[in-house]
């Protein structure tokens, strides 16, 4: 086996394209999880500058006050909101709520677990993440 395993590999795992919105949500969840972890580590480092006195703190704040900093923070807001909202959906799903009731499937066998409620939650998570980002932009860029 080994190289001949024919696993689809990273490209397959990370490709959100082929299988519908649930797969997109999976992909976003991963990216945002990792993104948030990265931000979180940075954030802990950032806050630690408070120990070095006001000038260090302010220097740090300066960085987030730039346009790039604002864009970055906007992204963090979006990631956080999506990850949280979708995370709540997933906690329910993983616990077996809202994934449909078993029963006789009829051709063409639509999958009950990929139901409209779930899809709506995913779109809603993306939606409120977008809203939050918009609000963040409004505040930070002072529009």
């Amino acid at each position, binding site marked *: 086996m080994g190289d001949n395993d024919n696993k689809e590999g990273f490209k397959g795992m990370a490709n959100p394209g082929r299988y519908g919105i649930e797969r997109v949500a*999976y992909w976003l969840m991963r990216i945002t999880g990792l993104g948030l972890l990265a931000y979180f580590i940075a954030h802990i480092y950032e806050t630690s500058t408070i120990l070095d006195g006001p000038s260090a703190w302010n220097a740090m704040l300066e960085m987030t006050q730039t346009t790039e900093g604002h864009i970055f923070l906007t992204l963090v807001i979006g990631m956080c909101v999506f990850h949280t909202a979708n995370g709540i959906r997933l906690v329910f799903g993983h616990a077996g709520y809202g994934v449909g009731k078993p029963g*006789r499937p009829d051709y063409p066998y639509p*999958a009950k677990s990929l139901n409209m409620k779930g899809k709506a939650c995913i779109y809603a998570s993306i939606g409120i993440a977008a809203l939050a980002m918009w609000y963040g932009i409004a505040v930070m860029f002072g529009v």
Partner: protein
Amino acid sequence: MEQKIHPKIKEYQEKQEESKVEVPKANLVTLKIKKYNPNKDSSSSYQNYQVPVEKWTTVLDALLDVKQNLDHSIGVRYSCRQAACGSCGMKINGKPKLACFTKISELDSTEITLEPMDNFPITRDLVVDFSRLFANHKKIMPYIMNNESEISNGTKEFLQDPKHVEEYIQFAGCIKCGLCNSACPTMAMDSSFVGPQALAQAYRYVADNRDKGKDNRLKVIDESHGIWRCHFAGSCSQVCPKGVDPAMGIQLLRGYLLGFRD
């Protein structure tokens, strides 16, 4: 390799020359087949074959036509040709499907790419190795665990009303075609993952009111490459040809482990 022409196409062409009639183009499709024999070839290659099709021709029909008339050597696994045996899973235009359950006319393209399913070792061409799938299936103890599972003389059936049957019947429809495992994003990287096929079967038996083996099964799947490596990506259910909906089964099963069901 010298490219043969399908005898029917040849016939058309000859007719066309004689009578100058236009051959309807829509009736010809090209199968682009990935060929690879890991023991002999250093790398895989794609081979094109043109075949005539009709409105009910399935991908499997077309493939067997190619095998009969153009290239005997194509490695392909098939048996029932009615979506009951799970032999003929392959990637058709990039997505895992059953060849016998996919009509050419549904595909809306005249070039059809056929590749072996992902996430299974390739045996040859479109044929992949199922040993891991079978082993994982065995691992989840797919049988009724109950002290009374062997009958003695005079034993009658366990009563089970139609509602109880509804609880598990959809999961019992699994034909072990492996399409779910080949679509699952975890499977794409994690070769130790038990996979949606086996997990759905674990749920099939847990949900059966004749079975008493829930705790044993939960123990088996509650490990680092067990049920928790499912992230509810849903692709398994998206591609399942039999409506098993493994994603549902897995989440319901996980409900037990999280203490939301008992």
